Every structure is written in structure tokens, then in C-alpha cells.
């Protein structure tokens, strides 16, 4: 069920400001692709263009093509709501719905979209929580509010919530940046498990993390502050970290940059 993403000539804007410029890349199915690069280089913006979340921001606009297998996400007549149902997202800060219990949080995507069969829901909730490695910790308090969990648990709850709707692709925007090393490890293990089924794209500031979890790595950079971010190169993670073809990548990875 995982799908390939083909991006060609993609630029994204905030009002008149060009945040990323002319990006083309392929994201392979059933693999983890990591985006690294300095702050403000447009990694997150680019990630958000992949499930049409960019246009939710005021003034957000996109030019170019994003092909999910053979369908252009930005083609005419494409419903952004169904795009987001196909391509899920996990955010930087854990954001469980504060009014809902743990159970309802996981079931939120299905419930809010009107898939209501109680028995199926139970099954989906259990499967998703198990998938997110959280089941054992919360199975006795499914009716407690989700905001009562620890940060790492909340983030895994958000992952469970995202995979409950069975997306084809999972986008993760710095999912571990607010977590301690143990929770981070839990999430990284989870990513390794999930890639058997999903296409995963992860934005990270932690290069060890990119090296640990990803199969392919893309390096983004910007010429100067205020200039649009660009894709410098994308390659096998091993090559990026050992023998990148562009000097800027090597400088960034070895810490000689900025």
C-alpha cells in the first residue's frame, strides 16, 4: 500500500516570498527518506507541500508537480482532504486533541470522517496503538485524556492517530525534537518497524538520527537568509554521510558550515 512520490519543479510561496525553489526528487516507497539542512532552508515547508498542508497557512501557494504514483496532487479536481487522508503527518510538537480520550484520539481520524462501526474501531485503535508501540502502556487507561501522557507517549499517540487512517505515506516533521533520548529511541525503533508498510519522510536536525533511521537522505540549503531554500542533493544515506558528491553537503555534515 505504500506509494512512490515524484516531485518535479516544485516551488512554494508564503505570499510573495519564495520559500523553496524548483525542487525535484523521488521518494521511494517502503523506505525512510530523511531531510536535513540548516534552519529556514525550507525542509518543513517542502514536507508540508507533500500533503497539501502548506496551503493551510495564510498566503501559502505552490507551483510544480507532486506525483503520487500516477496522480498529480496539485492537479485540477484533486480534493486536498482526500490527499491528506492518503498522506498522513506527524508534527514537531505532540498535539493530541485535549478534549478527547486516548481512545478517541486514535479513533479521531475515522470517527470524524464518519466511519463509525464500534467493533471495527476497537480493532483499529488496538492495532494502531500496537503499531505505535504504545498499547502496553495505555491499554488500561484508554478512556483517560490523551494530554495526561508524557511527551514521548503523546508523540507516539499522535503517530498511532496518523496510522489509524491507514495512509500510504507518513510525513514526520522533526518528530523527536521535543523528546528525551529514550523516547527518541522508541520513536526511531517505531520508524524502522513502520517502513515495512509505509513510505516515510522525516525532517530532522539531528544528523545521527538521519544516519540511523533513513535509507536515503536529502540535503537542503539556502544561499543566504531571505533566499529560497534549494535541494542540494539526494542520495543513499550511506553515500551522503561518507562520500557526498557536493562539497556543501560534506561541510554541513562535518560541521564546517555556519
Amino acid at each position, binding site marked *: 500500500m505504500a506509494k512512490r512520490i515524484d516531485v518535479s519543479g516544485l516551488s512554494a510561496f508564503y505570499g510573495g516570498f519564495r520559500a523553496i525553489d524548483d525542487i525535484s526528487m523521488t521518494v521511494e516507497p517502503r523506505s525512510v527518506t530523511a531531510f536535513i539542512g540548516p534552519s529556514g532552508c525550507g525542509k518543513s515547508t517542502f514536507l508540508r507541500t507533500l500533503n497539501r498542508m502548506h496551503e493551510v497557512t495564510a498566503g501559502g501557494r505552490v507551483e510544480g508537480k507532486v506525483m503520487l504514483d500516477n496522480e498529480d496532487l496539485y492537479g485540477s479536481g484533486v480534493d486536498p*482532504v482526500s490527499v*491528506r487522508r492518503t498522506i498522513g503527518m506527524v*508534527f514537531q510538537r505532540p*498535539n493530541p*486533541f*485535549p*478534549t478527547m480520550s486516548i481512545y478517541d484520539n486514535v479513533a*479521531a481520524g475515522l470517527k*470524524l470522517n464518519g466511519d463509525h462501526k464500534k467493533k471495527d474501531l476497537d480493532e483499529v485503535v488496538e492495532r494502531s496503538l500496537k503499531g505505535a508501540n504504545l498499547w502496553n502502556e495505555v491499554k488500561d487507561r484508554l478512556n483517560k485524556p490523551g494530554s495526561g501522557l508524557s511527551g514521548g507517549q503523546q508523540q507516539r499517540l499522535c503517530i498511532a*492517530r496518523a496510522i489509524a487512517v491507514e495512509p500510504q505515506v507518513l510525513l514526520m516533521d522533526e518528530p523527536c525534537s521535543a523528546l528525551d533520548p529514550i523516547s527518541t529511541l522508541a520513536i526511531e525503533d517505531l520508524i524502522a518497524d513502520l517502513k515495512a508498510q509505509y513510505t516515510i519522510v522525516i525532517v530532522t536536525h539531528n544528523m545521527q538520527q538521519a544516519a540511523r533511521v533513513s535509507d536515503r537522505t536529502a540535503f537542503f540549503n539556502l544561499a543566504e537568509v531571505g533566499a529560497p531554500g534549494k535541494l542540494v542533493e539526494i542520495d543513499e544515506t550511506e553515500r551522503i554521510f561518507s562520500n557526498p558528491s557536493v562539497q556543501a553537503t560534506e561541510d554541513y555534515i562535518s560541521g564546517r558550515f555556519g
Partner: protein
Amino acid sequence: MSQTVLAEAPVEPAQPAPSLRRPRLPRWAPLGLAALAAALGTGVGLLAGLESRLQWGLMAALLYVVLTVTVAGAVEGARQARDRLATSVIWVCFLVAVVPLASLLWETVARGVQVLDGYFLTHSMNGVITMEPGGGIYHALIGTLEQVGLATLIAAPIGLLTAVYLVEYGTGRLAKAVTFFVDVMTGVPSIVAGLFVLSFWIIILDFGYSGFAGAMALAILMMPIVVRSTEEMLRLVPNELREASLALGVPKWKTILKVVLPTAVGGITTGVMLAVARVAGESAPVLLLVFGSAQINANPFEGAQSSLPYYIYEQWANGNAPSYDRAWAAALVLIAFVMILNLVARGIARWKAPKH
């Protein structure tokens, strides 16, 4: 390493190490000073034969501030004295604000309970001679409940939807215009809202006086309050929750309905209740549009009704002792009504608040 540094450090002549301790006033000092100031204020007031208790109180307050600053300055030093100055001024301001409120409540309760009983709550003024005791507020109570209820039914949904539009959808000119007019509406005096409904509903459209006409005027007064408070509450809902919901493939309208509004529902309810409390005490529109009546009229769409504020005004205008008593009792009921609404709102807000 650090040891050698210590050893080589030149030995300073033993200066008295500056102590971190400073002389402090005892904990009971503020209270004691307040008592002293109160005693002095009373003493001076008695000696000088000042009539007004207000003057005694103001003198005591002033003395309290001056005493505190002087004593603290002498004992604790300038910085602490400034700290105590700010604290004591704030306490005085608090008392100045609370004393009238408490006295108003006390006065209303003390005078209101005289005639407030089951009979008073369940009988109207029909056939009661105003010069004599007896009669009640049943008709006015029904009128207030129905008019305020109808006004809420009109104003709450419109206000809520307007706020949702402004926060979730509104961009550009229309939203700016709506915000502007809501601000203007906030400042509309109640009598003007009443006159507007009078000219439109009663004079042009030729409907008669009714509780509903009054409810429309009250709704005009409620709407901006509901819009403002709901808007504030919706803006408090973190954007991350909206994004989380949208990223699950939930359409925007459902995100608003199932995620944004439930998160803010406590605050929204409080806002609506405050708006209700605000209009429950309006007498001007009732005077113009509901006409007032001594009889029970349970139908808000037909004929004159009364309402609590109007009843108070009417009884007071009668100008005799039994009527004054009834006015106080009605005022007490009105205050209790508003207070109960507020408590209910707080209860709902606490019950619905996001749990942790």
C-alpha cells in the same frame, strides 16, 4: 587545579563579609499597621466630629499607606519600602473596589428578604393596590426568563457563527467590516436598540407590544458580547490542533465542529452566560417594547409582559414603603438570578475544560 589557584590567591585582610540578611518587619506588621491606621482614622474622625464614614475610611487608607512606607523605610531600607508602597496601594485599591460591592449586596439582601417568600415568587401584581403590601413578581420572573431566553436563542447562534467566520474563514475586507460593526454595536446604548426595534417592528411592521419585541432588542445588545468573547476563545485554540485534524484528512468544517469548538466550549459558554447576565438587567428596551404589565402573560409573542428590571423601576416609581420593599426583593431575585447563571457557566466551563 582549583586547589592551587586557591592556595595562590592573595589573602585579603579580613573584611566583614557583607551579610545576606537584612532587617525585616515581622509578618504581622502589615495587619498591625492596618489595624493601627483604622484605629487612627476612627479616632481622628470621632475627635474632629466628621459625619461621613467615607472620610474616616479614606483617612485610614491614606494613613495605612503612609505608615507602611515610613516604617518599612526606617526598618528595611528604600527598596523594601517601595515594594511595600506598591503592595499597600494595591490592597487599598482592592478594598475601595470591594467595599461598594459588598455594601450593595448587603443592602439588597437586608432589604430584599423582608418580603421575599414563596408567595412573593408565585403571585403577580394583578389587582394589588400598590399602597399596600402583598403581590409578587411571578409575572416579571416569567417575562424576564422568556425574554432573555428568546434573546439568547437569537443572539447566541448568530454571535457564535460570526465569531467562527471571523476566526476560521474571515480574511480581507468583509472580515474587517464585520469586526468594525461588532465594535460599533458594543457601544450601542440599550435605549437606542429599543428605539430601533420600536420603529422597525412596532411602527413600520405594525406588530404590537410583546416580549418577543423586547427579546429582539436584547439580542442586539447580546450579539457583540457573544461575538467578542467567542472570538477570543477560538483564537486561544492552538493552531496545531487544527493542523493535526486537517492532516488526518478531516474536512475543515468538521475540524471546526469537532475539534475547535469542543476545545473552546467552556470559554464560549462563559461568554454567552455573561452576555445573558448583562441583558437580564436591561430595563429600557422593556419599557419601550414590552410595555409592562401587572398580570401574568406567559405568551411572549402576544401582548404586554413585565420583567424584573422593569418591575423594580415600576415599584420604585410608585414611591411608597410597600412598593420599595417589593423593589428591593425583586432586585435581590435579579442579582440571585444573574449569580446563579454565572455559577452555572463556571460549572459548565470546568466540566467541559480540556482535562489534564
